[in-house]
Each structure stands twice: as C-alpha cells, then as structure tokens.
C-alpha cells in the first residue's frame, strides 16, 4: 500500500506544477466545473480539454473538477446553479439547452439571464448530412425532392426531442413543407454512426461528430446553417445562399451562478481569456469546425444570452413545442 501511494503520488505530483498567480482573487477550494450534459458529448469534451489546459498551464491555484449533471436536458444543472447563487467556486459549461430547457420546463424556476456570464468560448455549427451512397442527392433541391418522395419513410436521426437538432429539424420541416420521422438517439456520435450504417437517412450533426466519416468518404454535407461558409467546408453552400432563411448555432459558453462576486468574475474571465487565446484552444477550434473569432464576456455576453433567449422563445412558439417533443 505504501508503495502504491508513493507511486501514485509521484505520478500525480508531476501533473500539478506550482501555481502561477494571475489575479488578486484566487479560488481557495477546488472549483466545480459543472457540465450540463453527459460524459463523452461535445460539451463534456470541451470542458475536460479546458480543465486539462488549466492544470497544464497552472492557471489556477486550485484544480477545476468537471462534474456532469445531465439530468433532464440540463434542468438538473440549471437548478443546481440557481441554488448555488452567490457561490464563487462553481462555473458551468453550457450549450443551447441553457436557453431551451427553461422555456420548455416552465416550472423549473430558473432565469438564465440572472446567471453570471463569464466567457463565450466557441460557436458550434450544424450541417445537413446524408450518406455518400445517396447518388440521387447532390444538393438541397434534390434532397427536398427525395424527402418529399419518401414522406414519413424518411428517417432523420437526432439527439432527442427538445435538443438543438430537433429544433433545427422542425425549422426545416416548416421551411420546406414536408414531414419526416424523427428518431432520437443518445448522443451525436451514435446518430453519426447510424447514418453511416444506413439506419437513418439524414441528420443535422455538428462537424466534429461527422468529420471522421466525411474524411473517409462515407458521408457528405449538403448545406451549412451558418451566416458564411466555414473554412473547413468551402464548397458547401449556406442555407441563406440558397434562399432559405435558417441560421442556427450552438453556443458553448462558461457561466457562473447568479450573484458571483466581482473579483471572482474578473479572475474567471481572465482565466478563460487566457485559455481562449492559447494555441491549443485555437487549434482545437480549427480541427473541430468550431467558430472562435473572439471571446465575448461581461455585458456583451449578457446581451448575447438575452437575445438568444428571446430568439429561442420565438422559435419554440413558431414551430410549436409539440413539433419538438413529437407527441
């Protein structure tokens, strides 16, 4: 036992080098890094990468501990943060369920605009994917024709009713006036695999989920739902270019609970700014097809959240909560 202790201690001692003082305020206990999604997903990967970078660069005197609270599309995490109001040692990695979950679950009693904005790390994007073997589908028009021809036999995979891709699917149904069968799977990776295995006909996946298959020539993107074409997909048109007004992003921002002290906010903002500017993070953004043009923080991020909440309220009212939940 003693031997093991020494061994493990030395293995771990290598990891945590002497902390470097950055700001006046420093965490005095480990920081809970809440992830409002399960292990292995996009938000989880990002949070664990950031945690690793914080330790590697010695940015904090105490470690960040990633904690997954995936319950109820993030409802559990949101409630947890709300109850932690005024706490300086908890931050949360969010995705779009940050906006949608409080709208769909009204009795949750969470107002995300009250949360403390820290930094917008990246915007993730969505593309429409089909299997490469579908020779009859080459662009958006032929896709819409194929879907209309198949009717309800057309199967779209996604990560669950009420999730971002189901909102996007509902938006497309409204825009093109067709109806599809939406099949929820746990996690974007599983959706991608089911597309390649031809269990489903099309998906709206993040680039990171499909990139490996795309590079292997198993899947092809038809449209990107961004404002401008991404560098990673220069030949894929945006929906707007084709005259379809759909633009949708997945935000990946870090937020604190309501009422965090100003000194702590300054510390976390500086810390995440350092991470954002690091070569590692920028490389990750490029390789995973994330948009990382500049980190929004403070009032800018608060305004961004407010406008997103409004936009999602409209979206959900427009497509109807029923179209999203599917029953």
């Amino acid at each position, binding site marked *: *036992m003693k031997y*093991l202790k020494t*061994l*493990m201690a030395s*293995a*771990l001692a*290598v*990891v945590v080098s002497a902390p470097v003082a950055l700001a006046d305020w420093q965490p005095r206990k480990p920081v809970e890094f809440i992830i409002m999604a399960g*292990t*292995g997903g996009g938000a*989880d990967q990002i949070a*664990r*990468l950031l*945690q*690793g*970078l914080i*330790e*590697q660069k010695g940015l904090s005197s105490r470690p960040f501990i990633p*904690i997954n*609270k*995936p*319950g*109820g*599309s993030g*409802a*559990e995490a949101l*409630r947890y943060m709300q109850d932690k109001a005024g706490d300086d040692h908890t931050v949360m990695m969010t995705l779009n369920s940050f906006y949608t979950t409080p709208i*769909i*679950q009204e009795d949750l009693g969470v107002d995300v605009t009250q949360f403390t904005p820290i930094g917008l790390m990246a915007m993730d994007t969505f593309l429409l994917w089909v299997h490469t073997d579908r020779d009859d589908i080459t662009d958006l028009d032929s896709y819409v024709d194929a879907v209309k021809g198949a009717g*309800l*036999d057309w199967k779209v995979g996604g*990560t669950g*009713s009420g*999730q971002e891709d*189901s909102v996007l699917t509902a938006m497309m149904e409204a825009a093109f006036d067709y109806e599809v*069968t*939406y*099949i*929820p*799977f*746990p996690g974007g*990776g*599983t959706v991608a*695999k089911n597309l*390649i*295995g031809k*269990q*489903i006909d099309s998906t709206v996946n993040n680039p*990171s989920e499909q*990139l*490996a*298959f795309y*590079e*292997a020539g198993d899947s092809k993107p038809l449209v990107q739902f961004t404002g401008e074409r991404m560098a990673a997909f220069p030949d894929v048109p945006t929906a707007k270019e084709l005259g379809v007004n759909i633009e949708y992003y997945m935000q990946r921002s870090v937020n604190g609970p309501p009422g965090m002290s100003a000194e702590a906010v300054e510390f976390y903002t500086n810390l995440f700014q350092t991470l954002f500017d690091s070569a590692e993070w920028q490389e990750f953004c490029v*390789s*995973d097809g994330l948009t990382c043009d500049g980190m929004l923080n403070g009032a800018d991020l608060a305004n961004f959240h407010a406008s997103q909440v409004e936009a999602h309220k409209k979206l959900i009212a427009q497509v109807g909560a029923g179209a*999203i*939940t*599917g*029953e």
Partner: protein
Amino acid sequence: MLDIATLLGAGLLQAFEPLNLMMIFIGCLAGLFIGAMPGLGSVNGVAILLPVTFLVPPTAAIIFLAALYYGAMYGGAVSSITLGIPGASTAVATVFDGRPMAQQGKADQALTAAAVASFIGGTISVILFTLFAPPLAVFALKFGPQEEFALMVLAFATFIGLGGDDIPKTIFSILLGLVMAAVGFDIISGQPRLIFFDFVELQRGIGFLVLAIGIYGIGEMLWTLENSRGKVRIHAVSTTWKSFKKNLSHIREYLPTTALGSALGFFVGTLPAAGATPASLMSYGLAKTFAKDPDSFGKGNVSGVAAPEAANNAASTGSMLPMITLGIPGSPTTAILLGGMIIWGLRPGPLLFTDRPDFVWGLIGSMYVANFVTVALNLALIPLFVRVLAMPFTILTPIIFILCFVGVFATTDRMFDVWLMLILGLGGYLMRKLNYPVAPAVLAIVLGPLAEQSLRQSLISSRGDVMTFFERPISLTCMLLALALMIYPIWLGIRRRRAGAARGPE
C-alpha cells in the same frame, strides 16, 4: 497476414519502450485499486485521470488509460468477491458466486479464478481484435436499434434462470427494475417521467450504481448482521504458495466456460451501445444454463466467477473496436477515452488505422502486455485482498458503510443519491427477507433503458410495424436464439421429470 504480424511486432516493441511500460504498470496498479473500491469503476478512474495524460505523448496516454481500464476490470472482481459489493455494473454477475465462495472460506480460489479468467478473456479478445478488427467494424455498423433490442431480449433470455423459486416475486423484481429504469427524462418524447415529489434530481434517473450499492452494500450488510447475530465470521484464508498452486490447478474446471465467455464477451463488446455489462450477464447465464450442475450456481460455483469475469474483460477490449474504427463508444468508459483521443488531436474513425498506425498498433501491443502485468499484479496482491476478510465485523461493517457513502458520492457528486442509496438498501433488505430476489431488479435497471429506447426507436423507424424485428437477419437470429434459450430450461425440466418418473419413486 504478414502485414498484421509486422505491425503487431512494431506495436509490441513500442509497448516495451520504458515510458510506455511504466505507463502500463502504473495504470494497471491504479486501476486495480480504483476498481476494488466499491462504487468506483473504470469510468471514474479514466475520467479523473484523463488530465494526467496531457503531459505525455498520445500513445503513452492512451496506453495509460487503457491499462487503467483493464486494471479496473480486474479490480471490480475484488470488491465483488471480498465485500460482496459490485464496484461497477460489469461486476454484478461476479457477486452471485464470488460472494458465497468468500463466505465458504474460498476467497483466494475465487480471486485466482477471476484473475485467470480475466487474463484468458483479455488475451483471447485482443487476439481476435488483432485479426478481425476491420471486418468487425463493418458488422457493427449493421447494428441498428432493431438489432439492439433483439440483443436485449437475448440478454434477458440468458438470465431467465437467475431468479428465485418464487415466480410472482421474481417477476415483480424484474418489473420493478425496469420501471425504475424509466425514471427521469425520456429522450424520445423529451418529457420527464415518474418524478416523485418534484425532485429535480430525479430527472437524471436512478443510477444503476445507487441501486446496486444500496442493495449489495447497505442491504447485504444489514442482512449479514441479522443472520450472524453480530458474530460475523467470514473464514480467513491462509495464502501460501501451496494453496496458490492448488487454486491454479482448478483451471480445468472452468476453462470451457471461460473460453465461451471470452468469445461472447468480445463479440458483444464490439457492438456499439452494448458493452461489458450485458456481456458478463449473458456469459453467466449461458454458463449456468449449459452446466451439468446448474443448481450449484449462486452457491459458490467457480465457473460462476470465471464466466462473467472472462466476458467483461473480453468486452472491455472489444469496446475499443467501435471507438477506434467508428468513433462510437461501446461503453461509458470508452466514451471518455474517445474524448481524450480528440483532445490529443487524434480523430477516431475509419481512417485512424491507416493514418496513425503507430498509435493503433501501439495500443494493441500494450493490451497484450497489460494483460500479463495485470494478472501478475493481481495474483501477487491476493494475499493482501483476503486479509480484509480477517477483520472483525465491528470494524469491517462501519468501514463498508462509509465506503458505500463515499463511493456513491464520488461517482454522482450529490448527497441526493446517497440518501436514495440508503432508502433503496433498506427496501431491498426488507424485501429480500421475504424471499424477493434482488438480482433481477439490479440487472433490469442496467438493461432497461437500452431495451426501452431501442424498442421505441425501432418502432418509430418502422412506423409502428412490429414485424421489423423479424425481417432483418441479425435481429431475427437473436430473437430465435432467445426463444431457444427460453424453451431449453423448460424442455430440460420436462425431460428430467420424465426420466425421474420412469425410474420410479426412490
């Protein structure tokens, strides 16, 4: 074939580099101890130590984590056998016979069997992995929701005989587990279900671990306290070189089930979403169904320890396959490994084998080496593990209670689950006293979510047509096998009764 040999040779050489070899060693040892803690399994170990790996090259990092994964799989058996608490869902089946063996004073034999079976399972599957990785990846892609559901039916069929003698109580237990699995957020409809008293915490659902530790940790300890009237005496075991050799000589008894379990485990492990838990249960169920003495299972049959252990180690290797070739995790642990690979700048997928052969073959090479290291470490540490059993119960009992609490908290990060564990443990104890079997509920809560989801996904995709399960070849095969497995024990029973009747009353 020659290609594979060359690549594997290079991989093995890589595994023997000093840094990588050290990684294997530390990983196996740390995994062994993490896995041996009740509650902590490979998932926690890998998630928690992931950041450690940013300091070393990717190949060394994945070798470290894979070794940890391996070590934890071996270690899970330790807590199942010595404490009677499964550390992870993959080690539930090991409790069934491992715990009785420990109570009979054969803990060392059970631990040896677990280690040897794990070694055989791990080695067989890494050989299969080396030979058949690419074709199996193609096969895994054919596995849709229909096939997943058929596999779940097959898994249920294999452990149909695991319940008690009381049929209505066994049925109740299975159904209770399945219903508990439905608590939480339904991803298909996006609605919360069975949220009692509006506890927002329940939206996450009732974790398998909370139920298993409640029942096997709290419930089992209360049961032991009552039955022994405080005079708990689990036989302390002497561990000598002679007894060790004697334990090894038992291998012949469980070799056939181990081999079967290994092949089955590898195959089930390669299927995305299935993972090591159903594999170990199916392996146990099959070992029991086809044993000459099925009645001795659950009472300390060494094959009942070997079969699930071989399968869960084989499956942990198997689940690396969809992770590397498809970027799909076959188990929660590989989901985190996958995250790690992306962070190291490696993109798992069909091209990884050709783009980064050094990485893939280094990993495969390390699996061979890690197997030898873990079995050696494990066998060497058995004397230490069995010493736990020599502790007086007034020390061991409170320590187990404390470990249950800390273990559950460390995995789920909330006191809510600790309280839930206490309540479920008390309920399980009270029910168990009335001959309600508890194992079926624990198994059902693991397989329930998979079964329900795949059933509904299939039906949505076939637009409500039930025939979809019988129209697809793989799904049909699984369904027919399940049917055969359900009929077999009945047929066997009838035949025995007839044989008994023919012989006349004795």
